[in-house]
């Protein structure tokens, strides 16, 4: 199994991913599954350039779900990043057999309420979280490896079906 980390983080590739998790787990590939970024030449290039020495693959969510099984069997370690819970759900619905998502950063925006310092959820986030938990996918809030992982189901028990 090449997958080292499946992460939900609205900053996508950034310092916590490259330095904290990357330093700990040493991925050779990062899959960034995002339809908007994949459709934009300059944004795709921005993320490819952001991680020197790592093979960054920016793909749409459908393509990421389709590639998930082959990647799992590939050599070397890999991260997968999505920007929100709804995208994580689409990935799972598309056939990616993800056991757990690391919830690394869903920052404050109007309409979202706080679960902890780096996880704020709105109505659409909660609906997607419920669907993922109902499918048996774990959702563990943990921004960096040095902090304690906490299940979203514990932080907000009403998410549990």
């Amino acid at each position, binding site marked *: 199994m090449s997958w080292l980390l499946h992460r939900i983080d609205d900053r996508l590739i*950034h310092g916590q991913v490259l330095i904290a998790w990357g330093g700990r787990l040493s991925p050779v590939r990062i899959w960034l599954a995002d339809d908007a970024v994949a459709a934009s030449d300059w944004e795709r290039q921005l993320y490819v350039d952001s991680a020197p020495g790592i093979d960054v693959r920016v793909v749409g969510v459908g393509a990421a779900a389709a590639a998930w099984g082959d990647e799992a069997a590939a050599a070397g370690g890999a991260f997968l990043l999505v920007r929100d819970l709804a995208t994580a759900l689409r990935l799972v619905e598309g056939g990616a057999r993800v056991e757990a998502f690391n919830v690394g950063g869903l920052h404050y925006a109007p309409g979202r309420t706080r679960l902890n310092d780096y996880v704020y959820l709105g109505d659409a986030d909660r609906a997607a979280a419920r669907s993922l938990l109902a499918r048996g996918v774990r959702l563990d809030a943990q921004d960096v490896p040095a902090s304690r992982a906490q299940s979203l189901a514990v932080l907000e028990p009403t998410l549990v079906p």
Partner: protein
Amino acid sequence: MSGEPAAPGGRPAPTGTPVPAVLVMHGELGAALLHAAASVYGEFGDVQVVSNEGLEREAIEARIAEAVAHWRNGGLVLTDFWGGSCHTCALAASRGHGDVRLVTGVNLPMLLDYLHNRGAYGVDELAERMQQKGRDNIRTQRSPAA
């Protein structure tokens, strides 16, 4: 002799309006760097700071874009490390502003060099100078024998 017009003290003569800058950094680092720079250089105003703390990407980009929008002839976005959200959001927010340069890995010697020279050089020359200054100041040394 060619190159910059020399002023007394060896520094080129001011060319006009100082090149503006915004520090985009993690946590309190930008504010702390400005504070430390003021203790060495003396008080100065007009260098802006954006922290990424607690912000999603769009909010970081909006704050950087607001700073950059006021620049009439370009300027410098100074960030901490390559690949961080400060850096990639600065790239996104300055897209289309051909006269904006990004500098990553900014340390105190680089910031001081900027303050000393922001009225003497253009945006591109200043960015190149800062890169060199940063590299020159990173050294390692064994402690002297007792």
